[in-house]
């Protein structure tokens, strides 16, 4: 009889569980070895990007040796780090960022490195807006790796064809969208799975959804800045000015962008090479322009939320790990070592105050045609005008998946942006409280 057997199975399992309960042991820490300290660095970048940096570092450092371990992809890195931290064994000391630092710190995956990193902040090595991306609740849990400057590229050939001027504000972009719609052209793409446009606009407006007040999180999805961002999105959606191409269907996405039916892309330096590689028909038609501003903004601002090289909890050599990461993110040697022969590009040095020596290499040869020279100024202006007011809380990983669900409802017109934000407000506060974290809002 099936039932009887299942019951028997359950009993055996329970019996074994009692015996096992006693023997979940802790691993003893590995003894410190003499000689150079080896720092293990996990990243899912290809070896051709990692190896030159590791070689350069090891050639110039005696007391620390860097060792790169290639991970399969972002979710794979996340899974492996969770496992390693739980096992408390062979924990790497540096990991490429796979989320928002506060979310990961809230999960207990990261080491507080404030003490080790603070001295470097006084040396002027970093661009000011780069710092926030490595912090959670005012403490450092990694080394800032900086940000990618935000700007926009437009299909100038299509804009010109219909006699529309490139937008300088979001209102102008909406107006351009209304004009383009008459010709069956969408002004922008809002992928249904990716709410980052809402996040970016909120950042550009100077807003944030979380704030620390004393020992409490103040959650505010309905701040004036957030609502300003919401208004832009709402107009784009309500007037049917945007396409909703998913990133997953890559052939369709590329073909669509290439076809001239979608003509403005908020973007950043790292994506340019990809456009150059995959576009065909529209190569040379694109123009880099400054990121559109909110009407009446007192100064030119671009959103720029930085990232970090993570230092996981259980790293045995935090001091050396921080030293190596600072070298990777700020030294000229490291940037120069990132040069790739085939694409003639350097990795974008997003953390340092003045990336101008490397800007030119970030701009591909054919994408912008004869407007290629304009890219340099657009990019440098974006770097100089970068602000990072963005703070997130320890439950942001989960909040983000909920936001994705809400965002999909927004772009398919099932709910308004405001309704989504109201929902997020309640969800976030309830979730923080359920985790026994101090929150109000």
């Amino acid at each position, binding site marked *: 009889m099936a039932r009887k057997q299942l019951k028997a199975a359950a009993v055996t399992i329970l019996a074994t569980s009692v015996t096992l309960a006693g023997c979940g042991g802790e691993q003893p820490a590995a003894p410190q070895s003499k000689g150079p300290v080896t720092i293990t660095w996990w990243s899912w970048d290809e070896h051709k990007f990692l190896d030159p940096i590791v070689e350069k570092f090891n050639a110039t450092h005696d007391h620390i040796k860097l060792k790169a371990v290639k991970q399969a992809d972002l979710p794979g890195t996340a899974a492996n780090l969770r496992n390693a931290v739980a096992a408390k064994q062979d924990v790497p000391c540096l990991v490429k960022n796979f989320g928002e630092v506060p979310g990961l710190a809230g999960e207990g995956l990261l080491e507080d490195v404030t003490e080790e990193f603070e001295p470097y902040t006084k040396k002027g090595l970093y661009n000011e807006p780069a710092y926030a991306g490595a912090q959670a609740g005012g403490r450092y849990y990694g080394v800032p790796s900086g940000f990618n400057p935000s700007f926009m590229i437009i299909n100038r050939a299509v804009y010109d064809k219909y006699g529309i001027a490139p937008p300088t504000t979001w209102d102008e972009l909406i107006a351009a969208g209304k004009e383009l719609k008459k010709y069956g052209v969408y002004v922008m793409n809002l992928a249904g799975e990716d709410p980052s446009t809402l996040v970016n606009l909120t950042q550009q407006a100077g807003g944030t959804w979380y704030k620390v007040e004393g020992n409490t999180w103040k959650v505010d999805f309905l701040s004036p800045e957030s609502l300003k961002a919401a208004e832009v999105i709402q107009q784009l959606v309500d007037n049917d000015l945007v396409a909703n191409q998913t990133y997953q269907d890559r052939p369709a996405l590329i073909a669509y962008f290439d076809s001239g039916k979608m003509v403005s892309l908020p973007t950043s330096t790292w994506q340019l090479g990809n456009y150059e590689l995959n576009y065909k028909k529209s190569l040379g038609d694109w123009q880099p322009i400054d990121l559109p501003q909110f009407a009446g903004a007192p100064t030119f601002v671009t959103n720029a939320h930085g990232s970090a090289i993570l230092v996981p909890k259980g790293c045995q050599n935090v001091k050396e790990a921080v030293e190596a990461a600072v070298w990777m993110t700020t030294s000229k040697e490291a940037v120069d070592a990132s040069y790739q022969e085939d694409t003639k590009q350097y990795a974008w040095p997003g953390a340092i105050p003045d990336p101008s020596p490397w800007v030119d290499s970030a701009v591909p040869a054919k994408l912008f045609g004869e407007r290629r020279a304009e890219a340099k100024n657009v990019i440098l202006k974006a770097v100089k005008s970068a602000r990072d007011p963005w703070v997130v809380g320890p439950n942001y990983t*989960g909040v983000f*998946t909920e936001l994705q669900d809400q965002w999909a409802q927004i772009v398919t017109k099932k709910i308004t942006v405001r309704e989504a934000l109201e929902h997020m407000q309640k969800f976030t506060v309830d979730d923080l409280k359920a985790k026994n974290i101090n929150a109000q809002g």
Partner: protein
Amino acid sequence: MVAPAVMTWRRIAAIKGASFTVPFFLGFVLFTVVPIVLALRESMYTTKSSGLGFGEKTIEFSGLANLLKGVGDERFWAGMGRVALFAAISIPLIQVASVAVALLLDAATRKVAARFRLALLIPYMIPGIVATLIWIYLYSPDVGPLTPFFALFGVNADFYSGELIWVSIGNLMAWGGIGFNMLIVYAALQAVPREIFEGARVDGASELRIAWSIKVPLIRRSLVLTTVLSIIGTLQIFSDPMLFRSMAPETVTRDFTPIMGIYDWAFAQGDFNYAAALSIILAIVVGLASAIFYRFTNTAPTS
């Protein structure tokens, strides 16, 4: 009464018989039972943060609290209902198709069968990530061939839309799964001694009749097995709907299916304890569904 000598002889045979299972069960206990038990333990604890949520966490024993919370979790059960409905429709279709292919192969002459067998197994050999790559293209309403194909018949088919999502997922599962089921059923068919059919053929029974009245009953155990595996696999469906989360995100929410919900709780919401409790509930539901099916087909799985 059995003579004592026979008793011991039987005993020894039984012990020797049991010894065939020893290597497997040693490994099974270590690599399957132990992790399950460790995971079950997780469900009985609750992890709490404090302050701003970045400090050390406290872990408290909470008994069945997580399980009870899961029993009352409406979003989780909504996902379960969705998947159960899908299973009720898709499994019979896929099973019938698999058996049909196996029977066709079995009915064909040896030469013909050899020619088709490999081709029929190609989808099964193609790894999931590549199958996904292929079908993303075929389904694509913008560049794929299927939407224009159906338009020829006046059918407006957008395989990425929320309405067709289950059709798209079902077809993806069928394409990759029929070969697997077919192989199991076909192997069982081939193991059946041929003499059994020949008599019927000589008596003039049609192939269809032989298939339905003789072959199918003979391979019933294999059919039950593939069906139960399908029930388990379908109720635990994850990667296919996860893919369509990008295509139709307004329909495919983060907890669209039970396993998607479990992943979200464990790795996004960061509550591994609750995720473990939900896994147990899911395992119980899947177990009940399988048990009902076994009861229905009158084949006790453990005998």
